[in-house]
C-alpha cells in the first residue's frame, strides 16, 4: 500500500509555553484507518490540527501525497480541500439547513461570483445530496441543523466531510460527545462508508474499545510523544498502562 501521509518529528508549543507535541512521527497508507489513543491533554487534538494547518507546528514536517506541506495561506487552502475534518462538537451552523451545512464541504470549489449569495453549482448540490444519502439523512435535508439529535448532527458532520471528496479524513474525538450506544452506531456507520470508499482516516478516540473494534492500526500518545504503535490485537493491558499510566485498569 502506498504512503499517503508522512508526519516527521512534529512538535508544537503553545504561546503560553505548553508543549502539546514533542516530536511525533507517523505514517499513514491509502485506505488505512489509524486511531490515536491517549489521555485528554496528551496532544491528540493538536496533532490532528497540525496536519491540516489549523495549528501551525513549531517543528517538524508533514508530507502529504509525496509533497512537503507549505504553511502559507494559499497552499493551506489547497491542502485542506483534500483533507476533511470531523469535530468532537460537530461544529455545524445551527441556524442553517442540513443541506447548507453539507454544502460547506464544497466551499473550496465555489466560484467567486457565487460566494456572497450562498449559491452553489448544480454539481456541488448533487455531491452534497449524495453525501447526505450515504449517511441516511437525505430526507432531513431542509431541516435546521440545530433541530437534529446529537447523533444525527454528527452524521451531518460526516456528510460535510464526505462532500469535500477528500483523500484523507481527520476525525477529532468524533463520537465522544454522544452516548455510548449512539457512539458505536455512528462510528460503525462512518467506518463502513470509509472502508467502502477506501478513504485514509486518522482519528482520535477516547474509548479504547472503539479503537480496538474499528482501526487497522493504533498509536498511543502520552505527554506529546508517541509511546506505542501496533495492531488492535497487540493492545494488551501492559501496553495500555504504558499509554494511560499505571492507574489504568481497563
Amino acid at each position, binding site marked *: 500500500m502506498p504512503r499517503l501521509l508522512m508526519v516527521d518529528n512534529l512538535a508544537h508549543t503553545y504561546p503560553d509555553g505548553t508543549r502539546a507535541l514533542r516530536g511525533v512521527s507517523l505514517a499513514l497508507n491509502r485506505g488505512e484507518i489509524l486511531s490515536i489513543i491517549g489521555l485528554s491533554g496528551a496532544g491528540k487534538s493538536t496533532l490532528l490540527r497540525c496536519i*491540516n494547518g*489549523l495549528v501551525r507546528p513549531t517543528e517538524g514536517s508533514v508530507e502529504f501525497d509525496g509533497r512537503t506541506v507549505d504553511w502559507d495561506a494559499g497552499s493551506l*487552502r*489547497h*491542502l*485542506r*480541500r483534500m*483533507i*476533511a*475534518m470531523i*469535530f468532537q*462538537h*460537530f*461544529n*455545524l*451552523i445551527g*441556524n*442553517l439547513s442540513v443541506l447548507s451545512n453539507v454544502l*460547506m*464541504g464544497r*466551499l*473550496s470549489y*465555489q466560484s467567486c461570483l457565487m*460566494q*456572497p449569495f*450562498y449559491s452553489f453549482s448544480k454539481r456541488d448540490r448533487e455531491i452534497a445530496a449524495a453525501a447526505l444519502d450515504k449517511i441516511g439523512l437525505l430526507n432531513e435535508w431542509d431541516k435546521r441543523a440545530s433541530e437534529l439529535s446529537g447523533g444525527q448532527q454528527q452524521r451531518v458532520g460526516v456528510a*460535510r466531510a464526505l462532500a*469535500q471528496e477528500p483523500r484523507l479524513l*481527520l476525525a477529532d474525538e468524533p463520537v465522544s460527545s454522544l452516548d455510548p450506544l449512539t457512539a458505536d452506531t455512528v462510528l460503525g456507520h462512518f467506518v463502513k462508508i470509509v472502508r467502502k470508499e477506501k478513504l485514509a482516516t486518522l482519528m482520535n478516540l477516547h474509548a479504547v474499545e472503539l479503537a480496538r473494534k474499528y482501526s487497522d492500526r493504533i498509536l498511543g500518545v502520552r505527554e506529546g510523544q508517541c509511546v506505542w504503535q501496533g495492531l488492535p490485537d497487540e493492545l494488551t493491558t501492559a501496553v495500555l498502562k504504558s499509554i494511560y499510566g499505571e492507574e489504568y485498569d481497563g
Partner: protein
Amino acid sequence: MTAEKAAGVALPARAEKPYARAVSFAKWLIGLALVAYTALAVVHTEFNPLKLLAGAASAKEILSEIVHPDWSVLPSLLRLMNETVEMALIGTLLAIIISFPLSFLAAKNLMLGSAAGRVVYAVVRLIFNVLRAFEPMLLALLFVLMVGIGPFPGVLALGLHSVGMLGKLFSESIEAIDPGPVEAIQACGGNRFQVIWYGVLPQVAPTFLAFSIYRWDINIRMSIILGIVGAGGIGYFLLQYLSLLQYSKVSTAFILILIVVTALDSASAWLRTRLGQK
C-alpha cells in the same frame, strides 16, 4: 446517626484583612458624602411639591383645552408623523449600512490575530465610542446649521449616533459566537471571506436583525424630539403650537404620538421575540 454528625463542616474563620478599620471608615465617609450631596441637590433643583400644587390651578385652562383635541390638524399631523417614521427608517438604514462592515473590524476574535488588525480594531472601536458619546439632539443641532432646517439633518443625526450604537452591539455579538463552526469552515478550505460569510454571519444574523429593528423603534421616538431643534418631523409641529399656546392642537399631536409609538413598540417587540425563538 446523631444530629451532631449531620451538622456538617464549620466554615474556617475569615482571613483578617489589613487596613480593615481604615476601609470601613472610608465606606462610612463615602456614604455620608453621598447623603450630603443629595441634600444639596434637593436645594439646587428647587424641588418643591407646593409649587406644583399652586401651578396646577393655572394649568386648569391648559387642561380644558387639552381634553378637547382639535382634529382639523389631523391630516397635516399624519403627514408629519409619517415623515418622522421615515426619518427614523432612513437614519437606521444608513447606520446599518455603515456599521455592518465596520462591526467585523471591531470584533476582538477576528482582529487581534495580527498587529495591523489590532490597530484597525482600536481605531474602529474609538469611532464607535465617539459617535455614541454625541447625543442625536446635539448632532441634529450641528447638522441643522450645516444643511438647514428639515428632515435631512435629523436623518444624519440619527444615522451617525446609531452607527455608534449598532456598531458596538453588532461587534459584541460577533465576539460571542461559537468558534467551532469558524474552525470547520477553515478546515473545509474556505478563504477569509467565506470564513466570515459562512462561519460568522449565519450565527449573528438573527441578532443583527433584532438589534436593527429595536434601533428603528428607538429612532422613531428620538426623531419626534429632533423636530424641536428644526430637524423635521412631528416635533417641529409640537414646538410651533406650544409656543402659539394652541393646546388643543398639541393635544391631538400627543394622542397620535401615543398611538403610533405604542403600536410600533409592540410590533417591534413581537418581531424581536419571533427572531429570538428561531
